[in-house]
C-alpha cells in the first residue's frame, strides 16, 4: 500500500490541508477532497481545458497535476475568481454575450481568459481565438465567447484607466 501524504494548498486565498495518495489528480482533490466542484473534468488527458485553474498565477490543467507535486502552491479555481456577490467583468461579459450554454466548459474558459487578459489587455480577434484554442466548447460555436472576451477586455481596460 502506498502511503498517503499530507499537503497544503492555498486555494482561493485560503490555506487548505489534505491527506492524499500520490496519484490523486489535483482536479480530484479540488473537487472531492476540498469540495470545489466548479472545476470540471472533461477528458483527463489534457485536451479539453475544462479543468483549467490558476496555479501560482498561471493557467494549468488540474487533470495533469498530482496534488502532491504542487504541495504548497497557490491555486485559484472558478469559485475564487469573483469578488463576492458581483460577477467579475469577465463573467458579466460571458453572461451578456450568451457565451455559455451548458456551462461545462465555462469555468475553464473563465480561468483561461482571466490569465489571457491580464497578459494581453487589448487583443485582436485572432489573438482571442488563439488564446481560447486550448479549451473545447461543444455548445456555443465560440463566436459568443470571442465576443465576450472582446467586451471584457474593453471593460477591464476602461476600469483600469
Amino acid at each position: 500500500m502506498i502511503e498517503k501524504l499530507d499537503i497544503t494548498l492555498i486555494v482561493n486565498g485560503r490555506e487548505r490541508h489534505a491527506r492524499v495518495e500520490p496519484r490523486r489528480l489535483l482536479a480530484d482533490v479540488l473537487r472531492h477532497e476540498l469540495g470545489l466542484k466548479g472545476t470540471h473534468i472533461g477528458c483527463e488527458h489534457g485536451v479539453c481545458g475544462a479543468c483549467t485553474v490558476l496555479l501560482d498565477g498561471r493557467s494549468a490543467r488540474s487533470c495533469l497535476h498530482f496534488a502532491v507535486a504542487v504541495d504548497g502552491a497557490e491555486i485559484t479555481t472558478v469559485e475564487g475568481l469573483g469578488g463576492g456577490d458581483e460577477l467579475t467583468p469577465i463573467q458579466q461579459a460571458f453572461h451578456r454575450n450568451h457565451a455559455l450554454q451548458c456551462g461545462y466548459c465555462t469555468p475553464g474558459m473563465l480561468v483561461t481568459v482571466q490569465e489571457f487578459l491580464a497578459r494581453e489587455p487589448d487583443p485582436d480577434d485572432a489573438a482571442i481565438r488563439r488564446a481560447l484554442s486550448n479549451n473545447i466548447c461543444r455548445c456555443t460555436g465560440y463566436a459568443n465567447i470571442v465576443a465576450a472576451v472582446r467586451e471584457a477586455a474593453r471593460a477591464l481596460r476602461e476600469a483600469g484607466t
Partner: protein
Amino acid sequence: MKPAPFAFAQPDDLAGLLLALGEHGEDARILAGGQSLVPLMNLRMVQPAMLISLNRVDALDFVDVEDDRIVIGARVRQAQAEEDEAVRRHCPLLADALSFVGGQSNRNRGTVCGSLAHGDPLGEPPAAALALDAEMRIVGPHGRRTVPASQFFLGALETVIAADEMLEAVAVERTRGDERSCFLEVGNRAHGFAVAGLALRLRFDAAGTVTLARVAMIGAGDTARRIAGAETALTGRALDEAAIAEAVAHARTEVDPPSDVHADAGHRRHVLGVLLDRGLRRLAEGDDA
C-alpha cells in the same frame, strides 16, 4: 481514467534526485511539468512505480548565456523559455517552436527539457533542438555527459538517457552572423496536434551563400530527425529557386513518415516538402522568426 498507484519523492537538490533515480532506476520516472507524462499515466499506458519530481530543485531553474550557447535548465517551463529575453534574442527559433507547443496552460507547466527527454515524435522541441545543434547535458550517478541532439533521439518515446540518468539541461547554439530561422507546422486543426513540422535554420555569409543549413522535421519518421540530403543540397550555394527545389526533392525522398488516423505517409511526405518550400522562401525573403 485514473492513474495506477505510485510512490512519490520530491528531493530538494540534484543529489537527492540522482540518489532516488539510482535506487529506483527502471521503475521510476522523472516528473517535470508532466504535460506529456501524466496523460499517459491517466490512460494507464505508462505505470511507473515511482515518480521523482524535480520541481523542488531550484538549481535546475536557470537560463544561462554562454559564449556560443544558451543553456536551459531542466525546470525551465516552456512558457518561461518562450518569454525569456535571452532566448528570444539569441535563439529565436526555440521561442518560435515553443509557441506551437500545446496551449498556454500546457506551456506554463511543461518544461523544455521534459519535452526533449520524453521524445514525442510529434513534439516541437526535439525538432528545434536538432536544428539548433543542441547539446543534451545528461547527468547520472557516474557524472555528466553531453550528447549531441543528432544522437539523442532513438525512436518514439525513446532517447539515450539511461534509467538512472536525467536530462539536466539543454544547450542550444546562439544565433551567429546572418542567421535566419523559422518553425512551421500543419495539422488537421488550425492549431495544435501537428501532422508535420519543420525547424529550419540557415546561416549566410556576406555574399548570400548558405554556410550552414539545418533542416529538422517532425512527422518524418518515428522521431524528430534532421534531413541530411536537404541540408547538403542547401549548403555552399545561394538560396535560389534551384536550391529550394533540390532541397525539397531531397527531403521528400529521405523522409520516412508514419501513417495514422490523421494523415497517411504520402500526405506527410508531400506536406513536409511543402513546409520546407515555404520555410526556405520565408528565409530567402528575410522574414524569419
